[in-house]
């Protein structure tokens, strides 16, 4: 009886609906297999999980261990170093990732020769298209102890060779530099698009009123860019528990001497997974997923308060 009523109230299931469902089916299956199954798989963080035999029987048969995996994780010193690195590097990356590209985007639009500007922009976009494996080979050519270009230069100046992959004190600077180097082209593209989109009549009016270029930048360009800058900032903050695995694993070539300055959550999870300490790995991955979820939702909530059009939901 009730069912009948509902059927009448809502529009009927049409032939189109069946066809659209068929069309969406392959992608839906993909989502179930590669996104939703792993979401339920996080329960292995609460289990004493052994890698042997089938996955499903393992999940069901392995005993519950409560919060034990998390206790192990947070009792180890590694966890705190890792979280410090993850958040610390990300805070620096977020700040530089705004400051440098915004400055350069403001500068490149002011060049007299705009064709040269296009060439510079294209060249600076190159690192974005290189994989971290290739970048790691590039860095090796510079920093290798016996063959590297950096040590040859040091020797020419009469200084001793440095064993770069064993000396942690240099690596925070290297990693920050590499991050800026790889992302600079991307950042400029985003901010330049915003600057190009600003109506030129604002500037014409300002010039007639005698505004200097600095004043135009300060009072027209930057305020017009504010929204995009804030959005990029918040979206980056939302991903503060995630790092670029390639940067922190491939570039330092997984050197153990550099553990304290190059291990982030992603690296920790990968290394523990590879050394078969699944309990700790799954606990760390769970922490990352949950904290990531909270920060992303929080960032999205703020975005919606600023500009509801740009929010994810």
């Amino acid at each position, binding site marked *: 009886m009730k069912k009948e009523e509902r059927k009448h109230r809502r529009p009927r299931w049409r032939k189109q*609906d069946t*066809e*659209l469902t068929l*069309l*969406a089916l392959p*992608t839906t299956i993909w*989502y179930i*297999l*590669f996104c939703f199954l*792993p979401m339920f798989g*996080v329960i*292995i963080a609460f289990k004493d999980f052994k890698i042997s035999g*089938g996955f*499903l029987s*393992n999940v069901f048969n392995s005993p519950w261990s409560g919060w034990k995996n998390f206790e192990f994780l947070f009792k180890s010193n590694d966890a705190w170093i890792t979280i410090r690195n993850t958040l610390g590097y990300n805070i620096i990356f977020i700040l530089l990732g705004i400051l440098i590209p915004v400055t*350069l985007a403001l*500068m490149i639009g002011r*060049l*007299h*020769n*705009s*064709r040269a500007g296009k*060439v*510079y922009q*294209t*060249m600076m976009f*190159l690192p974005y298209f*290189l994989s971290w*494996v290739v970048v790691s*080979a*590039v860095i090796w*050519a510079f920093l290798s102890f*016996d*063959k590297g*270009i950096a040590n*040859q230069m040091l020797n020419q100046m009469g200084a001793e060779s440095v064993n770069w992959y064993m000396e942690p004190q240099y690596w925070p600077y290297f990693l920050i530099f590499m991050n800026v180097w790889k992302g*600079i082209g991307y950042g400029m*593209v985003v901010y330049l*698009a*915003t600057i*190009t989109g600003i109506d*030129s009549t604002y500037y014409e009016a300002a*010039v007639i009123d005698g505004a200097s270029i600095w004043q*135009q930048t300060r009072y027209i360009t930057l305020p017009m860019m504010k929204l*995009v800058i804030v*959005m*990029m900032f918040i979206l980056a903050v939302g991903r503060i528990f995630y790092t670029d*695995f390639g940067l922190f694993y491939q570039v330092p070539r997984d050197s153990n001497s550099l553990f304290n300055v190059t291990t982030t959550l992603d690296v920790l*999870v*990968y290394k523990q*997974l590879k050394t078969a300490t699944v309990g700790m*790995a799954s606990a760390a*991955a*769970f922490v*990352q997923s949950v904290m990531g*979820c909270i920060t*992303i939702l929080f960032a999205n909530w703020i975005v919606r308060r600023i500009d509801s059009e*740009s929010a*994810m*939901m």
Partner: protein
Amino acid sequence: MAAKSEATSGLDRYNRIGKGMNVLFHLVFILLALVCVVPILVIVSISFSSEDSIRETGYHMFPTVFSVEAYGFIIQQGTVILRAFGVSVLVTVIGTVLGVLLTASMGYVLAQPNYKLKSFLTWVVFIPMVFNGGLVSSYFINANLLGLKDTIWALILPLAVSSFNVIICKTFFRSTIPDGIVESAEIDGASQLRIFFSIIMPISLPVLATIGLFLCFGYWNDWFQSMLYINNQDLYSLQALLNNLMSNVDALARNASSMGVSYATLVASMPKETARMAVAILIVVPVAFAYPFFQRYFIAGLTVGSIKG
């Protein structure tokens, strides 16, 4: 940017930075552009050096002794590198086609305002943007449950769809394709599948090209999936091969027997350092020559992403 400065009139002439400032800005950008490009030129230079000169004096910005022995070795020894090249191309092509189809079909379905399951599928696409199972459970599901370990599908399937791309597609279909086209085709009795493949796909080339490019570069540059799931060296892509060579340069001598020499002789005689960099060049060259032409589409995709989150 170019269009803007060409279009502006005399007014702009009074509104320029000073000559000195202009020179300074140019110098800054020349320096930055070189910092971005020179490292790749160094790799090129190493790959064209003679192995002996590197063994004696190390890497240099410019080859001290010019030689093409690394490339000669790659051609002559071939199979390992050619195979890896083949795997990379295959994964990139299949992955891009599959990814574009999966992304566009979902985007089209979500763009239909009257579809009954629309809100359900919107959640299916949205939830993974906020929460994911993390590396460990994904790894076990893919490797053990789905049996992808040591298959080429492990390199293709996990990267095929991203919710971000689906949303770009949906926004495109919603904003640029008039409802009338779909409605009139429906009245003519066309099925949704037919509408999607013969009407929507052909008129949506700009967005499909953008997403295809992102996928294409993503697959070509991927090494992480290989590191996780591939142990069989026959399934190594170029990236995986280079990754392996960085720690174990002798791996190139794997096929020594097919060349009629023993493994030990080949390891002793082959150009290791230069061949490694030559593999890096094989990876970089297609990308470096392709991206300046496709930059426009990339910029379109990136700016959609940043502004329309």
